[in-house]
């Protein structure tokens, strides 16, 4: 995964996805313990750290943008936007673009982590209002790195925390297990 982030600095797009059933530790490994990205950093804070340290090493000018979205029930929401409006997905010049998605320009690690913290908080508030939706929603953190130089480089880092993969509706798991699973996650 470190090599993945390094290649992102060289101009490749890269994606890290976490897949698994609810309670198996996707969010834990992506964000950190209990969503605390500072004390027990997960993959996302570490990769952000790697990105900024890597950018400091190079002499190139770079601009980093961060956007954080959630896909729930076939709707895309911006986690930085408190209004929680569903957004449209469009295709422009072969690229998939989410309309009106906020992209924040960040200049250091602290800013970036603070933004992600805000996003996570809004996600947890959604969790309560939308009946524990986090286990059934996918959150996608996009980091867009633009590097100046002889050739401009443009790389997109997708850090995806997918929804729980277990098959709820298909009757594979009985109600007790469900309760157990949700308890694990909500504790």
């Amino acid at each position, binding site marked *: 995964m470190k090599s993945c982030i390094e290649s992102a600095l060289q101009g490749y797009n890269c*994606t890290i996805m*976490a897949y698994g059933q609810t309670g198996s530790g996707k969010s834990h490994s992506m964000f950190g313990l209990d969503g605390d990205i500072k004390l027990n950093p997960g993959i996302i804070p570490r990769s952000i750290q790697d990105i900024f340290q890597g950018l400091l090493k190079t002499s190139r000018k770079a601009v980093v943008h961060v956007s954080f979205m959630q*896909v729930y029930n076939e709707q895309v929401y911006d986690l930085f936007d408190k209004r929680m409006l569903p957004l449209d997905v469009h295709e422009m010049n072969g690229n*998939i673009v989410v309309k009106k998605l906020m992209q924040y320009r960040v200049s250091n690690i602290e800013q970036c982590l603070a933004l992600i913290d805000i996003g996570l908080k809004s996600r947890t508030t959604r969790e309560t209002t939308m009946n524990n939706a986090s286990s059934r929603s996918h959150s996608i953190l996009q980091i867009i790195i633009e590097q100046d130089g002889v050739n401009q480089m443009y*790389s997109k880092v997708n850090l995806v925390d997918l929804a729980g993969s277990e098959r709820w509706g298909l009757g594979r798991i009985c109600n007790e297990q469900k309760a157990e699973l949700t308890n694990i996650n909500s504790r």
Partner: protein
Amino acid sequence: MFQIPTIASSHTEFHSLHTLGRCIASLAKVSKDRNTDIATNPVHIPYRDSKLTRILQDSLGGNSKTCLLATINPSSIYGDENISTLRFADRAHQVMTHAKINKKAKSSDYEVAMLREEINRLQQLLYANGILDQQRPELSMPIHDDTKENEDEKECVIAFEDEQNERAHEEIFGDQILVNSVPTTAAEDSKWIIQANAKNANQMPSEEMNCTPSTIEIKRRTMNLEQKQEEVRKAYQSNLPLSHNAACEKIVGMLGSVLILVDTFLTSTATLPVVVDKQSCSRKSQESLRTPRPYPDWCSFSATTPSPKTSQQKKKTMSNKQDIPNRLSSLINQRKRLKGENFESESSSEEKTKLDLMTARKKIKKKMQLRNWVLEKEQRAANPLEIMQ
């Protein structure tokens, strides 16, 4: 706190994950039998079925390096789920993505670089054929050098009382060089053209003596460049499909046709009793070629274009066709005085030669216009900002 999701709602909620699974499965299939012809039987990958897969379209099977972190629960009751997770991971492992570095070339700079390369190639071809001078200075030139040249020209101009006289002299003189010298090679021919055009260029500021020469120069240049920009673009676009060799051949052919024109011109004028000191003329021209000027003639030439002024001059000279023999003699005398050389003048040149001169000059101008855009193209590539402004 907890609600049991109904089958209907779970369908929509897990639709995206389901689609992700299908996408991964079909991508794995594609990657597996990659060697078989996919182009003929393209496999449909259902990216569009859900928002998640649409957003992650590039990450899954496109231009991306993708890591999949599969998490499992160690408890025995999740055995089924763990197996399905691992199956998914196994399928995802087979997917091949085609990552590439996203280099965004700076569009205008890139184009300029390409054009410069092309020009260099063309120039080298021209050098190889001996059409252009070997010592060629930079295309980009400061403005003040041009103005210096113009100041020199001004000093000459002061000697002439009548502005019109001076113009007529210049034109006729320019043609006399063409008449009296026999261009032997194509290279020499091009030099003549350049020189003649440079003379036309130098005539310009004499009219606007009141303004400072630098401002005139700037104005003139901007005007010309604006005019030229569109023309050059069109010409270049039309020329684009040509290969370098073809373009070179075109230029050579152009020069060849000019050579033929001059030859016919010479044969027509050879019989006429125009006695002008050939040596002085040729010497002067040679001097102008040899003397280390700040910038050679073609530099000033490249900045100039066939402006409406030249056509105006032509009209004026056409109207004064009647007293051209007299004027010619007077001008040649004046030139003699300026040069301080013995100069045998002859005023018995005929009307017919004048007409020939006019027609030939027109043709030459056409040729020069053609040559103009070639040089303009070069200049545009060398300093595009100047034109843009």
